[in-house]
């Protein structure tokens, strides 16, 4: 597992049924591009988060492909419609095969 990787998400605790909420996510990750060289001239191997998805009650909300030019600690902010109470599931896919997951519950009023 890559070191220092920690996902963080911010989802409101409740929303009005059918309303739109703003979701913020950030994962601490060095996002090594694979373009850089170390002091000996050897290429530092690429190590990035290459895909990020968010699902709500099993339905996909957003599915992002990340490329090497994206900076350290990738941050996403997006909106989602919340038709009913349920669970958001966020997933980050690392180049090294690791998968990081976080879930957040939301209620409707």
């Amino acid at each position, binding site marked *: 597992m890559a070191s220092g990787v*920690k996902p*963080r998400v*911010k989802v409101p605790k409740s929303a009005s049924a059918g309303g739109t909420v703003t979701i*913020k996510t*950030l994962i*601490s990750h060095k996002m090594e591009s694979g373009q850089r060289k170390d002091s000996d001239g050897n290429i530092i191997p690429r190590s990035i988060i290459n895909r990020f998805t968010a699902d709500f009650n099993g339905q996909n909300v957003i599915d992002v492909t990340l490329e090497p030019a994206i*900076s350290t*600690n990738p*941050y996403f902010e997006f909106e989602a419609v919340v038709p009913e109470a349920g669970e958001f599931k966020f997933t980050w896919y690392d180049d090294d095969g690791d998968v990081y997951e976080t879930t957040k519950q939301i209620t409707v009023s």
Partner: protein
Amino acid sequence: MQQKSKMIGLFAAMSVVGGAAWAGPDEDQLTINGEIAIVTETAAPEHMANVKTIYSGWRFRSDETQAVQMDDFDNPGMLGVENALVDWETADGSEGKSCASCHGASEEMAGVRAVYPKWNEEKGMVTTLEMEVNNCRETRMGAEKWKYTGSDMTDMVALISSVSRGMPVNVAIDGPAQSTWEQGKELYYTRTGQLELSCANCHEDSYGMMIRADHLSQGQINGFPTYRLKNTKLNSVHARFKGCVRDTRAETFSPGSAEFIALELYVASRGNGLSVEGPSVRN
């Protein structure tokens, strides 16, 4: 996304109309998390002869960079604060103590950042927050000291700063600290390097102007440690001093040296009255 690009377009159009080399500080107001009001502009302390108003570096940054500091979730500097919170509660060294063993919750440190660097009676010298952290580690915890500008140290200073956000910087420059302060002032106005630039040449005479592609601030340190977008990490005051002196093409002083301690006290005193902001976000 579309809305945002429209906004940027509008700002671009406005600055073309403005058209002057003078580019700030802007008029934006900083509130963090919608609750911590930050003073980013105030009357200069009496000892400053050449500047009437002091501004936080936040006021010189673009709207996009400013926005990142307005919410702790968005602020990547808070990742360092979270790391430090783990260290805060983890026992280290021969005494089996953590920071929390003596100090309690990290919030107990509120107000500490605002008054450092500060005269240490026991040591008979002005000490910085970093030195006090290492002092605790070595003498109270029996742990190895941290590298002065290392990430463990800078994260810890960011944690201690974060609980003082919104409090006014108020370092003492009289009494036993005065001679150190005088030494720092001397350094501030001394030209160094092949470019023969002093701190004052850029940060007092030319703030608001562009230095190549960057926007010169007053060089205030109320926002340190600072998360810089250019190196995507928290940067300590002395690391920044070193970078600045290097940029004058001089041999620099070392982080933690007597010279930089004095300079930190003097530069901090130029920000007396601004709010503690660290960890701030700059480009």
